[in-house]
């Protein structure tokens, strides 16, 4: 029997979003409740994926296949493996949290705000499910529209600049991918199915430009140094919810793209250029870590820390070992929880003080003890403390890197120092010390809604840190399959 769970995972949030939009701006409370129900429904339909997933198989599961554009043999082809499963669950959970977090913080155009997040969530699920390259591309590109609106409408003072920069940067990346996909479509005798693209034989001279075209798109999304400059702008100007979704889920589209398209479709070029990608990743880890150290703006600091952490993802992927790739995926999930939580923490303070500057704070712990404790926990997780989720992925990636090259690993491991330095130094300046700014003296501690959101994330971070085995189980076979497809020489066409 054909399942429709994946279709539901995509379309339930989108339809819910349209309903919220239809509720209109005159009844914000209705919009909020509808959005909450919609996001919960989106999470609920994703649960059967976790329970019904066959952990002993690396094949795509819950497959749906329907013709979409007959003239060009494009299909509505969905399916997930372990990696997609985890990212979908992360996305659905994040959406619920974002809706709750924006509950009474957002006062203007509530229904549009909520609808944008719901639609974005459905579209991103679509990216994680698509097994047809064109379908993938359509979802991948479509995510730009709601995010553009989110940053531009509810963002900070320089939001227009940030929104346009975000949009054009990512669009530039993906347009070249489109040409590469069309080329592959012809090479595969008129098919966009990933299964067919995985088997096309290509000479290295073709693989390399295709790899570069893919890389431009995914590197912008991850983002890797030196195309990361849109991210600090976007994060700083975006509303809290926008930053959370951007960091927690949207950046993962890049890492996911590397694993789903680049590695299996052009394995030889991936191996050929791995050194280059690894070099960029290490620059991101070390240099961006140093850049984070000197930031005066909390959101900017966390944005740079995101780039640095995402460096681990690309590093792990291009080590080409099961440990490395698994570490990269776990790092993506963990970064989703932690960076989301960090942005929410900054959001909590921003809502009260309307400032993101570190210098404006100091002594917050005196007035917000519960918040200070939770913030402390996430700051520790962000610096990769063992026992939190931040440790698992980084540890695996460093371990895998060590087997390849000691110096790579040594450089990567420097993040444990820099990460701790910039996160905890920021924490110290904001939370401890005497109260200097009179506004800080008027702060009130977390309310129930904020407690709920941060609490859920804290539990997730802790569980993943203490007992990552269930996630590993889901990933093992899928990662092996990806690495089998990424074996060099498997689809190399020689003699051209």
């Amino acid at each position: 029997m054909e399942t429709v769970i994946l279709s539901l995972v995509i379309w339930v949030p989108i339809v819910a979003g349209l309903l919220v939009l239809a509720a209109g701006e005159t009844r914000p409370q209705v919009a909020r409740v509808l959005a909450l129900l919609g996001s919960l429904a989106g999470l609920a339909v994703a649960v059967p994926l976790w329970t019904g997933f066959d952990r002993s198989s690396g094949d795509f599961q819950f497959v749906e296949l329907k013709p979409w554009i007959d003239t060009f043999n494009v299909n509505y082809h969905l399916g997930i493996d372990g990696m997609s499963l985890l990212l979908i669950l992360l996305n659905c959970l994040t959406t619920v949290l974002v809706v709750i977090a924006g509950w009474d913080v957002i006062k203007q155009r509530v229904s549009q705000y909520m609808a944008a997040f719901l639609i974005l969530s459905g579209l991103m699920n679509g990216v994680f499910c698509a097994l047809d390259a064109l379908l993938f591309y359509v979802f991948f590109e479509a995510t730009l529209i709601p995010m553009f609106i989110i940053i531009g409408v509810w963002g900070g003072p320089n939001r227009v600049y940030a929104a346009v920069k975000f949009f054009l940067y990512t669009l530039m990346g993906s347009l070249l991918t489109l040409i590469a996909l069309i080329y592959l479509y012809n090479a595969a005798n008129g098919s966009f199915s990933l299964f067919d693209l995985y088997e096309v034989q290509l000479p290295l001279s073709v693989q390399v430009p295709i790899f570069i075209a893919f890389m431009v798109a995914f590197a912008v999304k991850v983002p890797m140094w030196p195309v990361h400059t849109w991210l600090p702008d976007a994060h700083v100007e975006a509303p809290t919810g926008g930053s959370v979704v951007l960091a927690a889920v949207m950046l993962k589209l890049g890492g996911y793209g590397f694993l789903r398209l680049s590695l299996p479709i052009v394995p030889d070029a991936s191996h050929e250029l791995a050194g280059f990608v690894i070099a960029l990743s290490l620059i991101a880890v070390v240099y961006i870590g140093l850049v984070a150290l000197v930031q005066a703006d909390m959101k900017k600091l966390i944005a740079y820390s995101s780039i640095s952490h995402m460096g681990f993802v690309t590093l792990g992927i291009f080590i080409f070992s099961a440990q490395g790739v698994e570490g990269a995926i776990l790092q993506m999930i963990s970064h989703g929880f932690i960076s989301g939580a960090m942005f929410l923490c900054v959001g909590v303070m921003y809502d009260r003080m309307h400032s993101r500057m570190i210098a404006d704070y100091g002594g917050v712990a005196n007035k917000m003890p519960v918040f200070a404790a939770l913030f402390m926990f996430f700051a520790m997780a962000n610096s990769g403390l063992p026992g939190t989720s931040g440790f698992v992925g980084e540890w695996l990636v460093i371990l895998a890197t060590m087997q390849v090259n000691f110096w790579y690993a040594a450089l990567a491991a420097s993040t444990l120092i820099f990460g701790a330095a910039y996160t905890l130094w920021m924490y110290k300046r904001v939370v401890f010390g005497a109260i200097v700014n009179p506004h800080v003296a008027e702060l009130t501690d977390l309310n129930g809604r904020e407690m709920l959101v941060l609490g859920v994330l804290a539990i997730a971070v802790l569980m993943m840190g203490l007992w990552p085995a269930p996630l590993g189980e889901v990933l093992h076979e899928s990662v092996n399959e990806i690495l089998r497809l990424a074996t060099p020489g498997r689809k190399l066409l020689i003699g051209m």
Partner: protein
Amino acid sequence: MEYITPFIPALAEAFLLVMVCAILLIDAFLPDEKRWVTYALTMATLFGCFLITGFTDWRGEIYTFSGMFVADPLANMLKLWIYLTVAIVLVYSQAYIRARDMFRGEFFVLALFSTLGMMVMVSANHMLTLYLGLELMSLSLYAMIALQRDSATATEAAMKYFVLGALSSGMLLYGMSMLYGATGTLELTRMAEVIASNDADSTILMFALVFVVAGLGFKLSAVPFHMWVPDVYQGAPTAVTLFIGSAPKLAGFAFLLRLLVIGLGAEYLVAQWQWMLIIMAVLSLAIGNITAIAQSNLKRMLAYSTISHSGFLLLGVLAGGNGGYASAMFYVIVYVLMTLGTFGMILLMSRAGFEADKLDDFKGLNARSPWYAFLMLLLMFSMAGLPPAVGFYAKLSVLWAVVDAGFVWLAVLAVLFSLIGAFYYLRIVKLMYFDEPVDRSPITPTVSMRWVMGANGLSMLVLGILPGGLMALCEYSIVLSLR
């Protein structure tokens, strides 16, 4: 009976002509407050044509009038879209022309005559018919622009359009006369046979080709023959701009296909005009997209955007093969739908004494009316070629054809210029959503306009989610007509 049979394939044209003459007469006896009768009759005529064309034999090519006129699936399909487009134009224009004292019989009669010209062009299999159709269409358009007699800009636009249009028609005619000299026939299918049998002097053919392509370049507003477009688009009353920018594109596409592909489709000629079109396409994409950024007038910006879209259309045609022509046809249909929507939106926001044609007039539209802002958002993203709007699939199918024809570098150039293009479409979205409104007066469209606008805007999304049907239709009509 023998006098009637030749008319059967051209029944829609005959019906339209009879109705126009009738409307002309009836309108003369109508008092001003009963002018809606003319409007209703015009709509009824278009609907009648739609039924006639819709129910004709779609299976093959039917030639009539000794091969001067052909009714094939390509012509039928384009005609249906022309009727639909003209009908939508009239719905959108209604309130605008009422407020500007242009709600007169002439407007409708000229629009119908122009439609007739387009139909003749679409069905022409003979250079004389082609030219007749072209002139009938263009002359009606010149008059429509100048209908607002007291407006200096409109008169200037009409003058400019007329002079340059006449110049391009002259070039076209010169080219055609050379083609006649070289091949001894004016009938397109016959001409192709003569060229194929190597009976024609190739030097004269090359000369003719240059003139014909230059003439076509004018009509399709491709660079370097684009100078008239921005001035005419800006100067003409918006309702007329909408008309010029939409339906004639469909006819122009047919013109291009009939003349270049059917008439001059011999291999060694294709190699020649392919390169001419490549140069025109690349220049159009570059100049259209880059210049559009600097515009502050929305109509003028859209004029430059038209130029860039012509570049894309040419890419599809020059890629060649049924896939290329079908992609160009899909592109032009989608383009016309987008143009209808965007100019429709300008008409919707304008009112007596207020044109709404500045970019700033769209500031804060989301605060004034989220629904229309959403529709405009869809239209803009469709123009920019972003999924899930249908404009993406139009660009995609053209790129497909271009890559398939081996011009990967052209495809790369095309997407780079679309990236530049995305910026100015994005600016409109920015104005609507991120800025505060300056003008807070309520938007009050007529009921019919509200519904058609909604359908037009949503069609961007619906066709974007399910583009397969329209693509298959284009493919079908091209394959059956161009064998």
